């Protein structure tokens, strides 16, 4: 199991150090082993957005943390490609530029992976092939309706 873990660690680390700079337009990220003995060492994430020198990942901003987490999740997908991915408002802390980058990444991954994502953000809505609205026209009871982008925007304003 020792070798297996080391191999997993190296593979995910490789994917992360590729994905992070492409999402952030620069900077770097990697996984680090915490502790001396590989058999029970922990794993920590190191991430530096472009231009910054922060030491720990906890100093990152809300949006930077969300994007870094996405880079890690997609690295795990590259290791073991699950058939689908469900995302629930992961774009909420992102500014418009980063929502654009997030959409670019999801579109790229959707070539080999099925996405089902929930959002209130109009930029994210636009990348969908198909949109579903959930309504509670009858209070307390959910129903599914098919919507287009204009209806979806309206629906978020119901």
């Amino acid at each position, binding site marked *: 199991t020792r070798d297996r*873990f080391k191999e*997993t*660690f190296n593979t*995910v680390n490789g994917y992360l150090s590729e994905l992070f700079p492409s999402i952030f337009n620069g900077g770097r990220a990697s996984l680090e082993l915490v*502790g001396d003995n590989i058999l029970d*060492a*922990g*794993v*920590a*994430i190191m991430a530096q957005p472009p231009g910054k020198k922060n030491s720990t*990942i*906890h100093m*990152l901003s*809300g949006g930077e*943390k*969300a994007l*870094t*987490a996405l880079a*890690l*999740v997609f690295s*795990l*997908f590259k*290791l*073991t490609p*699950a*058939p*689908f991915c*469900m995302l*629930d408002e*992961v774009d909420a802390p992102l500014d418009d530029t980063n929502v654009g980058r997030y959409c670019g990444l*999801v579109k790229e991954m*959707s070539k080999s*992976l*099925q*996405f*089902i*994502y*929930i*959002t*209130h953000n109009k930029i994210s*809505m636009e*990348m*969908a*092939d*198909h*949109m*579903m*609205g*959930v*309504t*509670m026209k*009858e*209070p*307390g*009871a*959910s*129903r599914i309706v098919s919507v287009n982008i204009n209806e979806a925007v309206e*629906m*978020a304003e*119901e």
Partner: protein
Amino acid sequence: MRLSRIKLAGFKSFVDPTTIELNTDLSCVVGPNGCGKSNVIDAVRWVMGESSAKQLRGESMTDVIFNGSTTRKPVGQASVELVFDNSDGTLGGEYAAFTEISIKRVVNRESQSTYYLNGVRCRRRDITHIFLGTGLGPRSYAIIEQGMISRLIDAKPDELRKYLEETA
């Protein structure tokens, strides 16, 4: 393998039988606050075997059963079914021959859960067994719940190691 359909009945706010068709690879779910979007994600995690009420924002396992509204009475059971298109044979072993695979879970007010695989009754571990090696499961990296995206970043080193090992 793709997820082609989600069927809910009596699950949380989905009191009436509801079918969600998933025909494309980029499906977006929208709607006002509180309308039931995150309940769909809870439904997928529940049918795959989630056994903690707290992880489903409830206090007991019967909290997933529709418990009424101002115009509707509570119902007696909740059921969710996932239908997968397996024509590419990703799900191997004894299931490779099936082009369509459906898993279903039903719970009643006595908190008894029953699982079905292609309409035939089975155990919870048969369901978790199917998904072995696919990366899927009730707490998989493939499902990111609302507000939890930064959870991976805030995890302690030993938790992150476990996460990595489960994925491999």
